[in-house]
């Protein structure tokens, strides 16, 4: 009986119901959408941290003056620089260095109907400890000459062949998403990248036309021995190995972590402001609606409805409105965040990885629960007031 009466009350005043549903939708949209954004940003940062893998990255000092190495690795601006391979040996000989692995960089040129410049990264499968663990998530075979792995944001043609500097490369696997510019890069072994560098030199498209491809590297990635301080090892390399710059990998992403913390604070503030505003408006709206319906409740009491039944009627109406609004808000947030995650990532300039379906569902359930609880708390006050209505006084008042 209560359910039917609640339904009639809600459908009988569609404008009022729609306004309350809209408020509940705002609540759900802000808390679910905001939390999903914060979780995705956190997941992106975690993924990036895991993928960088090295403690220290050593690049030629000229690379620092020409452009920021962060641009290349984190901001997705393709670039390349080279130094003599002997620097890798000098770095490896320093105290505290456990493992070194060299990488070779190249940027493709934009050509053809749909190509854009792509960062090409060559690694040595024999010594690599950063890309291989990542690649092994999707590909366990040997990576041969001409084989390439591509980031998750690179769309692979149906024939699985990508052409750089007129050299055909076979895509053997697509790497899992990190939410950073590492997802738009292409990875191959040193021989593959040396062949591409040579091809770019032949076409006069490489600014380092004089280098011998088998005698250079672009960066040396270092793993520090246990018991050694990473900062000390980095300083030691910077002091004793000339013409190179050693950078702590964690420092490279500290800027991103700071931006992420700032963004999370901003989103939390937004959620708090929307909730405070919506809950206040909802409380006032409920109080006004209940005041308006005093006579209706008095008549119901005269007809024999108990105090509990009246409170139940108010609570069930509020629950129905909140449920509808919360579902609509959650659906809207999903529609705004999931399909446009790439645009959000690009707009924010921060790593952004949507959590897996299970977590999203869990978050949606939590948001739904929070909205229903908040709605119930706001309407409970009005329900208590309604249940205390003295029917004789009320009807006399109205007359």
């Amino acid at each position, binding site marked *: 009986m209560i359910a039917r009466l609640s339904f009639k009350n809600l459908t009988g005043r569609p404008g009022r119901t729609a306004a309350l549903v809209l408020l509940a939708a705002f609540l759900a949209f802000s808390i679910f959408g905001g939390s999903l954004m914060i979780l995705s940003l956190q997941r992106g940062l975690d993924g990036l941290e895991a993928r960088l893998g090295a403690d220290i990255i050593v690049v030629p000092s000229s690379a620092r003056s020409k452009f920021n190495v962060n641009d290349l690795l984190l901001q997705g601006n393709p670039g390349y620089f080279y130094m003599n391979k002997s620097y890798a040996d000098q770095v490896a000989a320093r105290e505290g260095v456990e493992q070194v692995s060299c990488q070779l960089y190249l940027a493709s040129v934009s050509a053809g*109907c*749909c*190509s*854009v410049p792509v960062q090409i990264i060559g690694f040595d499968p024999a010594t690599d400890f950063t890309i291989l663990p990542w690649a092994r998530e999707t590909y366990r075979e040997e990576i041969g000459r001409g084989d390439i792995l591509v980031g998750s*944001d690179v*769309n692979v043609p149906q024939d699985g062949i990508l052409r750089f500097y007129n050299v055909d490369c076979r895509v053997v696997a697509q790497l899992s998403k990190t939410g950073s510019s590492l997802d*738009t890069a292409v990875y191959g072994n040193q021989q593959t990248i040396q062949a591409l560098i040579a091809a770019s030199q032949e076409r006069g498209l490489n600014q380092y036309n004089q280098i011998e491809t088998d005698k250079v590297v672009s960066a040396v990635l270092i793993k520090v021995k246990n018991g050694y301080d990473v900062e000390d090892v980095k300083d030691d390399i910077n002091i004793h190995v000339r013409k190179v710059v050693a950078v702590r990998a964690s420092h490279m992403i500290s800027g991103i972590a700071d931006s992420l913390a700032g963004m999370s604070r901003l989103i939390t503030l937004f959620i708090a402001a929307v909730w405070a505003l919506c809950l206040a408006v909802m409380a006032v709206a409920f109080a006004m609606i209940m005041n308006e319906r005093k006579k209706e409740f008095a008549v119901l009491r005269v007809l024999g409805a108990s105090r509990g039944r009246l409170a139940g009627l108010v609570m069930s109406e509020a629950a129905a409105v909140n449920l509808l609004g919360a579902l609509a808000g959650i659906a809207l947030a999903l529609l705004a965040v999931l399909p*446009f995650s*790439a645009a959000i*990532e690009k707009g924010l300039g921060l790593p952004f990885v949507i959590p897996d379906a299970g977590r999203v569902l869990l978050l949606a359930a939590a948001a739904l629960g929070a909205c229903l609880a908040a709605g119930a708390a706001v309407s409970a006050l009005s329900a208590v007031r309604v249940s205390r209505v003295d029917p004789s006084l009320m009807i006399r008042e109205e007359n």
Partner: protein
Amino acid sequence: MKKSKKITAMDIVLLALCLLLPLGAAWIFPACGAHEDGSVMACHWAGRAVLGAGAAMGALAVLRLFLSSGAKLGADAALILFAGYGEMLPGTLISLCMMSTMRCHALMKPAVIVVCALIQLAAAADILLRIRRERAEKR
């Protein structure tokens, strides 16, 4: 079927969504821009196709306003099919650019899919509401 030509809220919603598609493809969520040499990428043609399909849907949504309730059911069904076609244009029927981070992948494709899905949802809801109203009137 009643021959009422009354304009309902759902008619306005459908019209707004159908007009959003061509306007969006042209200005709000267009495909990637041309190269410096003026050459265009494959996604440009996907954007043009969406613009064309969207213009046809917009015209149908305008015409729909002047139709009887029964004819509106047919127009709704046509819009559902048209929107399905529109959803498949970017990426499925016409290929897009190489990187998922490019505008055609990041903005145009999801926006077209979302708008087309909303058109399908609104048109389906309109069909259901009209059939329900018709049944209620007969009783």
